[in-house]
């Protein structure tokens, strides 16, 4: 257990005890309640892989996976997620072995400047799980029909629309996700 205390600013209110498990490591924290999950990760836990883009939930650069779901870490208070399990981009690879999506992003040039990439990766990992669970999207033709989702490029684009890439690497991002999902469906995963 790593014990970390954020230094409260002079005008702060009482700090709050929070326990989190991030990329498999347990943390016991005392936080100013204003601390966003994003700032906690970057500034207190030394996990700067998660990026601050707009800080207003409009770009997706800060996407992390909390209890299996992707959320914008900028628009949440860390204290709300007391007891949660969090995966950031630093937790996707297995040691030196990249996550299949990371390798696919490299192969398909799914980035240019790379600033949005950690958010894109976390978002895509969770998106693939959502697809496996049969969730509908805005472009799903008939939401009343349940069952397997056919992950067309249109579906990938809609489901990834919460992650903006200002370099416009979208074709590469879509290709990388398409490749990984097709491989896993061929393996029957």
């Amino acid at each position, binding site marked *: 257990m790593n014990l970390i205390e954020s230094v409260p*600013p002079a005008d702060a209110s009482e700090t709050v005890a929070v326990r989190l498990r991030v990329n498999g490591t347990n943390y016991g924290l005392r936080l100013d309640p204003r601390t966003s999950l994003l700032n906690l990760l970057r500034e207190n836990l030394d996990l700067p892989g998660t990026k601050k883009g707009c800080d207003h939930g409009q770009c997706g650069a800060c996407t992390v996976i909390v209890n299996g779901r992707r959320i914008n870490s900028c628009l949440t208070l860390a204290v709300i997620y007391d007891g949660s399990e969090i995966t950031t981009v630093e937790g996707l690879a297995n040691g030196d072995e990249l996550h299949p999506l990371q390798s696919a992003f490299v192969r398909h040039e799914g980035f240019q400047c790379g600033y949005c990439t950690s958010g894109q990766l976390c978002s895509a990992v969770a998106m693939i799980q959502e697809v496996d669970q049969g969730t509908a999207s805005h472009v799903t033709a008939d939401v009343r029909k349940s069952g397997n989702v056919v992950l067309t490029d249109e579906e990938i684009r809609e489901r990834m629309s919460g992650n903006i890439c200002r370099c416009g690497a979208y074709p590469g991002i879509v290709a990388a996700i398409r490749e990984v999902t097709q491989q896993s469906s061929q393996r029957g995963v």
Partner: protein
Amino acid sequence: MNPFAYTRATNQQAAIQAIMQQNAKFIAGGTNLLDLMKENVEQPARLIDINRLELTQIAERRDGGLRLGALAKNSDTANHQLVRERYPLVTQAILAGASAQLRNAATNGGNLMQRTRCYYFYDTVMPCNKRDPGSGCGALEGFSRIHAIFGTSPLCIATHPSDMCVALAALDAVVQVEGPQGPRSIPFAEFHRLPGDTPQIDTNLRRDELITAIDLPATANSFADHSYYLKVRDRASYAFALVSVAAALDIRNGVIQEARVAMGGVAHKPWRATKAESALKGQRPEERIFRIAADAEMQTALGTEHNRFKIELGRRAIVRALTIAANNA
């Protein structure tokens, strides 16, 4: 962001007790409130975290309707099997809004409590009667492209930003709330307000009340075969509606038995297009009738220099949403 005291409510009673303290606010998903706090538009002294309350269930009611827990996530609501099968309009509307990340954090109750995305409301340097009553309205003299064309007042032309609420308005949902005096039910049409003389008050929820659930009536199930949520926006996804239309038809023997039409992006609240509904009832579901219905509603709209386009856009959106709804099955 201003400092605030943070407490976690462990039960409804404690939450309602806590909210009675001065300048206290509930926080659930936080996707709108925290954004507003970062901009100093909202400056609560105390946040009551209600995420631990047991209000996440989505369950069938004894009368055949469906109860959506106030703390059920938007994403879970949209993808709940019974919502998808019986109230596909709700699923479509939720999935048309925001992004997957935001829908994963945002709750149903919070969706109802969203505040306008009017840029003058967000910009604390500008006058805004909603944020600072009596200071004036930046939008009336400024850029009003995204603003309201129905039910405006000389004090405010802001719109309500929700997609989900437009579907809930169309289906006559009922909001269940709990306060110090006990529970009460608020019909959806009476939940949100028009700006009038008090644009700072968005809803008829009292300050010390907690939304506990949203009920979808069993009768709204009759629209499941013929409903559609059409959203028109500046880009294909992840943007607020310029105009949206929730259309729901109960068609039997080739005749519209009952019609529901509600619009988003056009008013301070989800706008029930009752004039269009009246024009549809008892008619055959055909384009000529849809045009008459759209004209009946939109002729009462009033645009500004910048948002006048919404009147023709709204007319066409109503016709298109009804056409798609009628042809579903």
